[in-house]
């Protein structure tokens, strides 16, 4: 592990999108790290998986829909997006997401991918 080690950040998203600001707070961090050309991966576990589901529409409940910003991930070179299969199954949810490049991982693979990051922040 040399001084030139490239660090990478994992953002572990675990809250549903609207009632809680956690998802938006994590997104703001992801975009800043992306704009500083730092490597960021997004993980979705527990109720965090609701953030990814297709067909949501926050405008119905007067939310400025930050989920639409997820479409900008490619622009920021954020292309590693993992979702926990166990969390989807528990909620009876299909792998039908509102952004592309989402990888569904089984529990073991999800846990393994987390270990490839030096810093893990959970929201």
């Amino acid at each position, binding site marked *: 592990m040399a001084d030139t080690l490239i660090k990478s950040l994992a953002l572990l998203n675990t809250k549903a999108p*609207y*009632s*809680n*600001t956690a998802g938006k707070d994590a997104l703001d961090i992801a975009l800043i790290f992306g704009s500083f050309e730092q490597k960021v991966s997004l993980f979705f576990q527990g109720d965090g998986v609701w953030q990814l589901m297709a067909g949501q529409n926050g405008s119905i*409940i*007067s*939310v*400025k829909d930050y989920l639409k910003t997820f479409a900008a991930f490619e622009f920021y070179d954020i292309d590693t997006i993992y979702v926990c299969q166990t969390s989807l199954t528990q909620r009876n949810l299909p792998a039908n997401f509102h952004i592309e490049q989402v990888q569904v991982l089984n529990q073991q693979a999800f846990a393994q991918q987390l270990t490839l990051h030096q810093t893990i922040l959970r929201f």
Partner: protein
Amino acid sequence: MYNFSCTIFRNKTVNKLAVMITTPPYSNLSVTALDYIETALKNGVELIGVFFYQDGVLHADAHVQIASDEFQAISHWRKLHQAYKLPLYLCITAAEKRGISDEQTQNISPIFTISGLGELVELSTMADRLVQF
């Protein structure tokens, strides 16, 4: 169209409402609370007051800045306060814990009445229903 009161026996109508708000303005939970309150008022429910407690006290903080394209809870409270003379009671003890002080009154939005938990006792006594949001 709707029946918003419930007549019990002959001469007692149950439609006095009080609401306690404990969620902060930057949460979508406050949108729901405001929707509930506005709907009640529009339908003629007698809303005797709203009491702000716990993180709900941030609604009264005159310095709160929410991005202009996001939901502005304070402008909705102002509208309801003006249109319906809706009393808005701020629990000052909960507020002080969160940095909202009445030593400098410009810290507190003037539509709010500075009060304490005694006001909650009063609301609870007067209201037919006290609902938490």
